[in-house]
């Protein structure tokens, strides 16, 4: 035994810290702790992994969805000059342009009407590999067309006409062999048929791409019979800001979760760390244990998150392509940002581990041995700092919008970072307020809330991460609802078709049908309706016979709008000495026939006798009921303006009517028809099927319409941000529940002594369940309220110039966040608690 006392070698390291051997010993213990208790780290690790993965996918999405180097229309050109295809001086104009602006790409377009449809096909003559437009053309399969009889189609067109490579396609009287499938990688919704150079004959228009950019006051210097459009300012700064803001918020979230997690671990190891101090470990060595733990968790989380994030990104690319409408480069991730986020994730875990380690070393060894939490700090200073930070963050967001087209990316990033940090500082105050408010509740709830105050370090970090997760969720939900179109249905519901007698409803004139024509059309459409199990509602429009039959006019896509009667509409109208100017808001009117009212389930008796227009829309103020009542053109009396019915209509709001769609939504009452002396004529038919129409059924309808001289409009817009809102809500709620699971269990386990006392006093499992349920429910409720309030505060600042979009409230999502999550958390806590507290007096040293 004497060897024990006499053989101690002199310390190699003279410094008080013990040097490298001490650090190695402590780090070894940290690593062993991690290895022994990796299951306890699992939740922190998985949350860290998830957050890193989400950050990577977010970075990829933000970069690829918003930061396009090329424009889907302009390619890399600055200006497109569009010349008419019928221009006799086309070649001379192109030569003059080339002399003035240098290299050009010339693309000819021939618009071919699709029989039986309001749509047309763009036959495009574009040479692959152009200087500016090469980025707008990509070959997906087969080959580019090389000769007169060849064509390459976009996949949408190929599907529409049931064609594949090798098929023969006849359009516009020309037969061509399909040799390839092409796309505009920057706009996957751009449908066109690519032909060999010089084969789009005769061209409807010719687009000339050039790098020349018209500066202020700079003309082209060439006299052209065409239009010039230039690329607008590019907001790459805003995209960068978005990427940075996403990254920083993601990492902040990672950090908060890690703080919550490491606070839990520090508390578990508090006695062991106290023992280490009693052996003579310095504060730095004690902190090193937690830092080693943090480094292990951070490195593993970053690695796993990186692998999963990149994998998830690769899997997400097809969905993102479909959503964004342009081709995404699978490996087009901002790798520098990904690398930085991984490094920052490790650093964040280290900092998160350091924070509770520092708190433990500040406490006395005796307190550590006893496992007593540090007394809660005064919330006054926290709250003041929080209020200042929130105000500062909102101010930064306010000033980030610098003029109409300019943003200050650093302001956005800082604002997005500082605002949630401020909310975190307010978390302890929120907990105290709730605890004070619960002073008159039952003992279980009261005890639960007071314990949240006692264990403020833990509950504050948990509340912070829940708040941030839900703030992000609420921001996505509210902003996506705000930026969505007022009516998410699109132009038509999937089970609807419109069949028009005119190829262009915006032309405002409808050709009359003779009685035999009308009979033939009605009979054929009835057959069609039976074939596709649909009902057919005839739609009438109104015109003044005094206006007379208007001559045919040219429509878009080279179509000719046949002679017809000018029909009444709702429009913003200005009568000028030389004519009538419709300045916007043109809405076609359909007559409120009994059949149409019945289709919408509106009783004719519900229509007020004084009403002119029936509508569900609330934004029609200022529109006039406009109807020509005299011929226009050279025959106009005295060359003055035409005579019009210029009436400010009396509106009756009926919510059953559709809004913002091609289905008839603004109806002219029969009473108004008579008052204005207008006459009804058949304008269209609404086909209403019982189920969403298939492509084949739409094709059948188009074929039938083509035979009858009608034009079909089917649903084209199906995109909705509802899925994004719902997914983000689900993810946010799950993250919040994960954090709750991690922290509530610990807070309750630390109060096992109190539970034993309660059990001794006769409290049963219901009390224990209520305590746990109240703890998790209170944290969830506070996080939901703070997060939603923070999101709305930031969005109010962001939308300050026009708050009306915020009127579209995602009620279901917010109810899920503010009410659903707390209920779920309470219920989960209640169900999972209730186990009898262990009677063992001594606790093992973790």
């Amino acid at each position, binding site marked *: 035994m004497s060897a024990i006392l006499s053989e101690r070698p002199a310390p190699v390291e003279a410094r008080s810290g013990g040097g490298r051997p001490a650090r190695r010993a402590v780090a070894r213990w940290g690593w062993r702790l991690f290895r022994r208790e990796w299951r306890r780290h699992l939740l922190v690790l998985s949350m860290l992994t998830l957050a890193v993965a989400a950050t990577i996918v977010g970075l990829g999405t933000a970069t690829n969805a918003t930061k396009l180097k090329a424009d889907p229309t302009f390619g890399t050109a600055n200006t497109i000059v569009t010349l008419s295809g019928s221009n006799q001086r086309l070649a001379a104009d192109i030569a003059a342009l080339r002399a003035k602006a240098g290299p050009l790409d010339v693309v000819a377009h021939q618009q071919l009407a699709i029989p039986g449809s309001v749509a047309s096909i763009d036959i495009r003559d574009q040479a692959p590999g152009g200087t500016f437009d090469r980025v707008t053309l990509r070959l997906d399969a087969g080959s580019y067309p090389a000769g007169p009889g060849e064509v390459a189609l976009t996949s949408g067109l190929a599907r529409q006409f049931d064609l594949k490579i090798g098929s023969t396609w006849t359009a516009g009287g020309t037969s061509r062999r399909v040799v390839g499938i092409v796309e505009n990688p920057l706009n996957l919704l751009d449908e066109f048929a690519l032909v060999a150079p010089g084969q789009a004959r005769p061209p409807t228009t010719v687009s000339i791409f050039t790098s020349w950019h018209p500066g202020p006051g700079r003309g082209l210097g060439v006299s052209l019979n065409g239009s010039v459009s230039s690329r607008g300012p590019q907001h790459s700064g805003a995209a960068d800001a978005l990427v940075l803001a996403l990254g920083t918020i993601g990492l902040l979230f990672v950090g908060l979760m890690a703080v919550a997690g490491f606070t839990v671990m520090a508390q578990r190891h508090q006695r062991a760390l106290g023992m280490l101090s009693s052996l*003579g470990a310095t504060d730095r060595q004690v902190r090193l244990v937690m830092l080693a733990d943090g480094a292990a968790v951070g490195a593993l989380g970053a690695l796993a998150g990186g692998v999963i994030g990149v994998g998830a990104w690769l899997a997400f690319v097809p969905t993102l392509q479909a959503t964004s409408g342009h081709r995404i480069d699978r490996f087009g991730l901002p790798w520098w940002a990904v690398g930085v986020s991984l490094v920052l994730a490790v650093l964040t875990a280290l900092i998160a581990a350091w924070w509770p380690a520092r708190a433990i070393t500040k406490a006395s060894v005796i307190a550590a041995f006893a496992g007593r939490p540090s007394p809660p700090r005064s919330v006054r200073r926290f709250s003041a700092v929080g209020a200042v930070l929130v105000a500062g963050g909102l101010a930064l967001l306010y000033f980030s919008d610098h003029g109409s087209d300019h943003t200050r990316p650093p302001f956005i990033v800082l604002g997005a970072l500082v605002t949630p940090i401020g909310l975190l500082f307010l978390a302890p105050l929120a907990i105290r307020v709730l605890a004070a408010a619960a002073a008159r509740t039952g003992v279980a709830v009261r005890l639960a809330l007071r314990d949240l105050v006692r264990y403020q370090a833990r509950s504050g970090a948990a509340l912070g991460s829940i708040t941030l997760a839900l703030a992000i969720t609420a921001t996505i939900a509210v902003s996506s609802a705000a930026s969505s179109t007022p009516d998410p249905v699109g132009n038509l519901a999937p089970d609807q078709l419109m069949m028009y007698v005119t190829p262009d409803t915006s032309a405002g004139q409808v050709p009359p049908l003779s009685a035999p024509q009308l009979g033939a059309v009605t009979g054929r459409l009835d057959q069609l309706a039976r074939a596709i199990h649909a009902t057919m509602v005839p739609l009438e429009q109104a015109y003044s016979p005094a206006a007379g039959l208007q001559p045919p006019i040219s429509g878009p896509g080279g179509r000719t709008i046949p002679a017809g009667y000018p029909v009444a509409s709702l429009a913003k109208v200005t009568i000028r000495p030389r004519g009538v100017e419709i300045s916007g808001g043109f809405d076609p009117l359909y007559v409120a026939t009994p059949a149409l009212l019945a289709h919408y389930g509106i009783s004719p008796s519900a229509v007020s006798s004084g009403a002119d227009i029936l509508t569900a829309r609330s934004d029609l103020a200022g529109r006039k009921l406009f109807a020509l009542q005299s011929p226009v053109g050279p025959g106009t009396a005295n060359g003055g303006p035409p005579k019009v019915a210029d009436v400010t209509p009396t509106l009756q709001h009926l919510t059953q009517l559709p809004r913002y769609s091609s289905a008839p939504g603004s109806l002219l009452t029969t009473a108004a028809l008579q008052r204005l002396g207008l006459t009804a004529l058949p304008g269209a038919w609404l086909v209403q099927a019982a189920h969403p129409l298939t492509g084949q059924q739409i094709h059948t309808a188009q074929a039938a319409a083509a035979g009858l001289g009608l034009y079909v409009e089917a649903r084209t817009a199906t995109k909705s941000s509802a899925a994004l809102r719902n997914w983000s809500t689900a993810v946010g709620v799950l993250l919040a529940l994960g954090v709750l699971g991690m922290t509530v269990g610990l807070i309750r386990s630390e109060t096992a002594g109190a539970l034993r006392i309660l059990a001794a006093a006769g409290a049963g499992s219901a009390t224990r369940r209520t305590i746990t349920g109240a703890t998790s429910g209170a944290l969830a409720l506070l996080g939901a309220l703070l997060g939603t309030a923070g999101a709305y505060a930031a969005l109010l600042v962001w939308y300050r110039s026009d708050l009306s979009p915020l009127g579209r409230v995602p009620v279901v999502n917010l109810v899920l966040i503010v009410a659903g999550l707390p209920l779920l958390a309470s219920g989960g806590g209640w169900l999972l608690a209730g186990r009898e507290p262990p009677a063992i007096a001594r606790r093992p040293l973790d």
Partner: protein
Amino acid sequence: MTVLELRGVSKVYGEGSAQVHALREVSLSVGEGQLVAVMGPSGSGKSTLLTIAGTLEEPTSGDVLIAGEPVSGMGRDDRARIRRRCLGYVFQDFNLLAGLTVAENVSLPLELDGMPARSAVQCGLRALDELGLRGRAGSFPDELSGGERQRVAIARAVVGDRRLLLADEPSGALDSANGEAVMRLIRAACRRGVAGVVVTHDAQLASWADRVVFLRDGRIVDQTVPASGPESLLTPNP
């Protein structure tokens, strides 16, 4: 030579009406090779005396000297150095680190003091050898019995050039046979020159001490020298 000296040490917890005088003007000195037992009822200040003597807490007033060096006014790192080099603790709950092997637990104070791991483990192994635990050097604490764990804790407390051994109810979690064996080991360490302070409720275990100090309400109310008893049963080391 006096290894531990407390001069008029007082300790007050709390403020105002919640104020508690845990120790009042306590003076105590423990010399080299001397074993002092501290007894007293619950709340008498025994554990507070031990934590102050072990530099884990600072006295409200009075001085603590360890090996003649005043501890008052030392920084946290300096007090940690004292704990690493001069004194060892034995706790009722053993307080071994679950993540380290027996040998690593014992050699930990040496490693913390800067000794290379290999040398520290060699020292630790020798200490374990002396306590008959060489064969369990690679085991983890949760693989040992209670008696074995406390022997490991004693090895850790005395490994290296420790001059003061502080034990808080070292046999509290053990049966009587193991408790006595632990006291025998502590006594043996003191015979080699280590100064020992043991807090205990058990009068029979206290009879191993050279001197018994009685505390009541934070004051030393009596000091006795027990008659030779169980110590006579101590068999010399083989």
